């Protein structure tokens, strides 16, 4: 009987099946062009003397360092983000409501800024070690102190900078986990930890892994933090090939390894997601009751959240503010840079969001959708400067010169190519958790596709879409290398200003634009957090 209803849409009105794939094909082309152009120039022109030298000296060690860095950073992120998300979603403890959004704040602070701040805090001349020497009469070489300029140090900085990706996606997933599953587990006498391990994490796994994949791709493409802390990752080697050897093509060839890593991560993500076992099975939603953590355990929870916030945001940001005050080095007026930053971030986030949501809606529909997603992921794993280079190469192949307003268009294009993955991933993860039966029911009832998207997919994707919009906006706000390379004359962003001071070793002057980036990112973070806590369907 259902079959009859489906055919209500007259066949004559439907376009041939392949045309439905056109927008997706277009998106794939737009996203993949810079990556492919960079990859091609790397393959065709990148094999010269520089590449031979890199191959003979440190290609393998930098690759190994990168893989180790990803593994350790990933482990740290999970250890921070999952307990934090679980605690603020499921329990009531002192300060819970504040921590719920405080824990997102590190998202607003760029990794390179945290690296600079931590370096200053932890260095031999920094406040901590100076205090130790003053108190003990030791010399600088008489004691052991953790070295932030090491692989573990870099992983620590990247983890506290990037854990919000997982915290956000995990929290969104925990918030929308069917209460039935959790209640059933509780009724059956499962202890809280085992509810987390055996019910909540498996159910939230696609979201958690999606967030982790994003964070790790971001870590792989990081140059600022690794470069400053002196850790030889692939991306650091890539920039050395470009600036020391002046060989952009060899740099592009090194980016191929980053691309391979991204494809690997993507593949792992798909592998773990599979097809079954992750969709919510019950449609019974009810207000979440948060058991109170009384006494010591409540304070322990608050202490954990407080520590995470302090490490990811409070401590490094306070240190920056302190330096700025201490030296009185304020730099110039940042009003114009703030406006430019907001404009570019809005435009870039808007475009990336639309592309991202399109990909997410198509996500489970065929190989082209997978290709589009792969193109987006490729862009996300490659440093912005390499994508910008790819954009320039593509442009010159088309016989165009990057002059005038075209530069701005290209910048937005590169933003989209670089960050769409960050938008598509959370939305897709949210959609993936919805019972497919809902979509099937709507289809069976003959709901037209557009309505189906509007009335079913979008509401389901809502919490994910909010996360996506926020991540996109804040990411582009922080973006440096592509903006630096492609922005039109006199279009300085806050990140560009901060970079200018930091590269001149004027940490104090860099502090103010960094704090402004953070402040500009805070507004959407707070809005998001407020919406997210109300996004629980049925409550």
């Amino acid at each position, binding site marked *: 009987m259902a079959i009859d209803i489906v055919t209500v849409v007259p066949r004559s*009105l*439907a*376009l041939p099946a392949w*045309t*439905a794939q056109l*927008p997706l094909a277009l*998106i794939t082309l*737009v996203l993949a062009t810079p990556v492919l152009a960079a990859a091609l120039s790397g393959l065709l022109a990148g094999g010269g*003397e520089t590449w031979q*030298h890199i191959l003979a000296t*440190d290609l393998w060690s930098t690759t190994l360092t990168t893989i180790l860095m990803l593994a350790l950073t990933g482990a740290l992120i999970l250890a921070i983000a999952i307990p934090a998300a679980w605690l603020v979603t499921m329990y009531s403890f002192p300060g819970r409501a504040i921590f719920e959004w405080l824990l997102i704040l590190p998202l607003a602070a760029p990794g390179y800024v945290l690296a600079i701040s931590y*370096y200053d805090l932890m*260095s*031999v*001349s920094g406040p901590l070690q100076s205090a130790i*020497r003053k108190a003990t009469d030791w010399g*600088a*070489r008489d004691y052991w102190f953790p070295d932030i*300029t090491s692989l573990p140090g870099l992983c620590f900085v990247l983890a506290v900078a990037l854990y919000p990706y997982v915290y956000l996606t995990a929290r969104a997933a925990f918030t929308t986990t069917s209460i039935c599953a959790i209640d059933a587990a509780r009724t059956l006498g499962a202890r809280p930890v085992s509810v987390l391990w055996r019910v909540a994490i498996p159910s939230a796994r696609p979201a958690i892994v999606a967030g982790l994949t994003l964070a790790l791709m971001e870590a792989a493409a990081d140059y600022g933090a690794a470069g*400053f*802390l*002196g850790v030889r990752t692939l991306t650091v080697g890539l920039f*050395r090939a470009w*600036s*020391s050897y*002046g060989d952009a093509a060899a740099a592009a060839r090194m980016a191929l390894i980053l691309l391979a890593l991204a494809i690997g991560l993507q593949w792992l993500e798909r592998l773990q997601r599979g097809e079954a076992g992750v969709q919510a099975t019950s449609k019974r939603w009810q207000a979440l009751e948060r058991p109170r953590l009384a006494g010591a355990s409540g304070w322990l929870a608050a202490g954990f959240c407080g520590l995470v916030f302090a490490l990811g945001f409070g401590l490094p940001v306070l240190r920056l503010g302190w330096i700025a005050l*201490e*030296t009185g080095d304020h730099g*110039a007026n940042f009003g114009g840079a703030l406006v430019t930053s907001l*404009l570019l971030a809005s*435009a870039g986030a808007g475009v990336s969001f*639309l592309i991202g949501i399109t990909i997410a809606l*198509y996500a489970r529909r065929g190989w082209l959708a997978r290709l589009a997603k792969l193109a987006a992921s490729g862009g996300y794993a490659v440093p912005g*400067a390499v994508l*910008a280079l790819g954009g*320039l190469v593509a*442009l010159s192949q088309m016989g165009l*010169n*990057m*002059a*005038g307003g075209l*530069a701005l*268009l290209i910048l*937005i294009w590169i933003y989209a190519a670089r960050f769409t993955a960050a938008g598509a991933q959370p939305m897709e993860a949210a959609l993936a958790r919805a019972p497919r039966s809902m979509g099937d029911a709507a*289809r069976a009832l003959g709901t*037209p*596709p557009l309505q189906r*998207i509007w009335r079913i997919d979008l509401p389901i994707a809502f919490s994910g879409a909010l996360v996506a919009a926020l991540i996109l906006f804040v990411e582009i706000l922080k973006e440096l290398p592509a903006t*630096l*390379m492609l*922005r*039109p*004359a*006199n*279009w300085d962003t806050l990140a560009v200003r901060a970079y*200018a*001071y930091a590269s*001149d*070793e004027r940490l*104090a002057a860099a502090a103010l634009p960094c704090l402004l980036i953070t402040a500009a990112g805070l507004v959407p973070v707070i809005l998001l957090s407020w919406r997210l806590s109300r996004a629980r369907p049925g409550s």
Partner: protein
Amino acid sequence: MFRPLKSRSLAWLALAPALFAAACSGAESPASSADQPATHGVLNIYSARHYDSDKALYDAFEAETGIKVRAREAGAAQLLETMKAEGDASPADVILASDAGTLWRFQDAGLTQPVQSDALEAAIPARLRDPDGNWFGLAKRFRTIVYDINAVEPGEVDEFVDLATARFEGEICVRSSSNIYNLSLLSELIERNGEEAAADWAGAIVDNFARDPAGGDTEQIRAVAAGACTVAIANHYYWVRLASSGAQADRETASTTALSFASAGNGAHVNVTAGAVAANSPNRENAVAFLEFLASPVGQAMLVTETKEYPVTAGVPLPEGLMELPADLSESDLPLDVLGRNQITAQQIYDRAGWP
């Protein structure tokens, strides 16, 4: 079962690219005039320098000449690729970089043009500019040795080869080798003593490291003051800025350390902030006028206010906090294009020596 999307959803989804275009053109409008190839009264500067005082410098040039300045700042390697991509249509008139080797790269890529200017030639010593006028040095910076005054005698660090001796085993703090100032330093050693000697020097420095390189020059100086090492390699102005900093701790750092110009052998290692006229400059006359302005007493003084570099022309007052150069200081007479020519070899040597 998979079913393709129907026409209406297709239309909706097809909006995305349209909105893409709309978003782009919308964002573009505030700057629509910023970048267009100019016909008259405009100067486009591509700068790898990043100083607030440069904005004041541009303003002063605008005020004096009425020529409207537009600046684009980025890393040198990225500016170079951007200029290549722009090709003949590049709006760039002037290229500024904080290193002679960088300018040589632009010259080597055919992105500069020779300029003949009596004013520039009169103001700038010949060794600080390209013989054909492809680039002109505008301010001097010295790579120096900063040392702990309680642990090192000035005579022990009067040239860079001193640092390669057993005297400084475990005592040297220095930043990463890919930093342009370290590359330039080794480029000079390669030219003077040959590749083999340069490689020996780099290897000996690595053996003498107090710790693995990280952070910038300022951090190396601070590490000396804190006692983590007794000597550091740093540009002179980082020490000068600490000495005149608003923070007490910075001034203490400077007061327990001193600076050697390491000039005993072949003279102090000099590098320059330099400018060039772009090969396809649409406003060539304005570009030359700007370089001449930078070489004028007013331009020279403004150029170094914030950076604490040394002016290249005589008789220009030094910026606040910068000490006079020692009267008997001998400066290296190496042609500066060598710094660019040897840069790749220098990085290769560093890589092989295991200098991160």
